[in-house]
């Protein structure tokens, strides 16, 4: 029988242990910063990967923590993209101010549409989110006078970043900007998921009936996390509009939402890094395969995805450690 003080110490340690910053996390972010100094040729690619990673992170909050399967998350990304583009074009050219406005507006769009995902089962949610995505895409197409339609939104020229740095054609400032914004939002998301509120959102995913039985209003939790994720997706979209200085209808396309789910499946859900790692792997694999067989890259992506699902990510990730153990055992 252990003493009360020991139990409290053990409980404190265990509860803190979950949210402890792990060495791998520090390595990850250091690598992202190192890329800025050592991969100057790849700024455009890095920028794109980081934006996709942030976008996937927002879906992870909804899917990996809230348990809501969405096939229309590009609605928020695309909406944020257009809002940022239009703001820049028609007066509010300061990038950071643009981000704040986009976050608020996309958050509101998330709030408005969140009521749709509260109803029904996973299947209903997939169809409803998909519909919202398609709907927004069509609206973007119809409002060609505003969005530029199929030609895209031209003439998006943001002001200097912090009144000092110009977005250059090599994407140097763009990557630094995207990395900084992503890091800040990641830290916020990380605090969020380990807070009591974050735990209550996970609880909803684990068992909604019990969550309501301990007095937590389930629907309100889902509305908040959905809106928050929408705001982050909007910011990711805004980053794309500001750093590429162009918005095309493609940002609202269905394949963006679908790819995003693939990215999360590749990277894993419910630990926040899945989106960032998945985005990087997805891009690298996509590029590598497209170089080998430009026509059939989708086949190989599909094959890889099926393999991940069949074999299981844990086993793939655990393979090096498993082999190492075997080798040591033999030696």
């Amino acid at each position, binding site marked *: 029988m252990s003493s009360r003080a020991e139990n409290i110490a053990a409980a404190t340690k265990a509860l803190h242990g979950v949210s402890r910053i792990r060495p791998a996390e520090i390595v990850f972010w250091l690598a992202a910063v190192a890329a800025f100094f050592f991969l100057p040729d790849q700024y455009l690619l890095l920028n794109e990967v980081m934006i996709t990673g942030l976008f996937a992170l927002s879906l992870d909050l909804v899917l990996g923590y809230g348990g809501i399967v969405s096939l229309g998350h590009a609605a928020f990304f695309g909406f944020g993209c257009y809002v940022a583009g239009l703001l820049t074009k028609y007066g509010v050219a300061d990038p950071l101010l643009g981000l704040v406005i986009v976050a608020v507006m996309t958050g509101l769009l998330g709030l408005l549409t969140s009521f749709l995902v509260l109803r029904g089962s996973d299947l209903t949610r997939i169809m409803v989110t998909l519909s919202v995505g398609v709907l927004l895409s069509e609206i973007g197409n119809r409002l060609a006078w505003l969005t530029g339609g199929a030609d895209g939104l031209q003439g998006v020229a943001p002001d200097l970043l912090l009144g000092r740095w110009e977005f250059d054609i090599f994407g140097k400032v763009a990557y630094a900007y995207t990395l900084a914004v992503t890091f800040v939002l990641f830290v916020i998301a990380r605090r969020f998921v380990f807070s009591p509120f974050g735990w*209550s959102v996970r609880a909803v995913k684990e*068992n909604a009936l019990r969550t309501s039985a301990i007095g937590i209003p389930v629907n309100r939790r889902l509305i908040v996390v959905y809106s928050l994720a929408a705001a982050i997706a909007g910011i990711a979209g805004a980053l794309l509009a500001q750093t590429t200085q162009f918005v095309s209808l493609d940002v609202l396309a269905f394949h963006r939402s679908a790819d995003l789910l693939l990215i999360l499946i590749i990277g894993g859900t419910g630990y926040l890094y899945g989106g960032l790692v998945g985005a990087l792997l997805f891009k690298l694999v996509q590029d590598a395969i497209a170089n080998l067989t430009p026509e059939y890259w989708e086949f190989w992506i599909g094959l890889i995805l099926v393999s991940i699902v069949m074999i299981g990510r844990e086993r793939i990730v655990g393979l090096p450690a498993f082999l190492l153990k075997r080798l040591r055992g033999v030696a």
Partner: protein
Amino acid sequence: MNTALETRNLVRRFGGLVATNDVSITLRQGARHALIGPNGAGKTTLINLLTGVIPPSSGTIMLEGQDITTASRSRRVELGLVRTFQINQLFPGFTPLQTVALAVSRRLGLDRNMFRPIGSNRRVIEEAVDVIERFDLVDVMNANTASLPYGKQRLLEIAVAIACGPRVLLLDEPAAGVPEGERGEIMDGLAALPADVTVLLIEHDMDLVFRFADRISVLVQGGLLLEGTVAEISNDPRVREVYLGDAVHD
């Protein structure tokens, strides 16, 4: 004698079926009250009415003198009416400590905090450990809930409810499905319930009912057949007939 929970002429109809028929029960503060009745007697409907899963067709529910007939589910929990489930409703991916800590955070009103880690509040940890110790879950507090022995999961089911700080606790068949060897744990768990918490126990296991309860209500076909002490109920011929069955002889 303070009244903790009271129903007045509670009725619930499903179409032509009267699932709850004019039920008036009064539980005094600190009571150990059992509700028994054969299958289909309306026990589950009554729990659903009390916890706000479904609204009554007529009648009122009072919690410590306050009318909660139309209160939301989470509001009832806030006011101190908490339930457990006949079939485990736990968070399989959480540890028992995380589960209890979340419930304690909710009770302390910290569950809307989005920025501080759940483990940063000393009171949350202390009260969570209190509950864990009370139900003898210390050894498994950091284990995965899904991997716990069934008896421990049943105990956690009760522990989570206690962590919500109930004034009145509704126990829905706490020993359901627990193997013989782990039943003692459940009895110990029930004995460890705080004395000031009023308990309404719904149970099939008559052994457990007779050992735990001080008063018993018998529900038959949606209505109350009778109410009395353990001795009164166990000797009542009508109860023997409708509930214990004709097969009981002594």
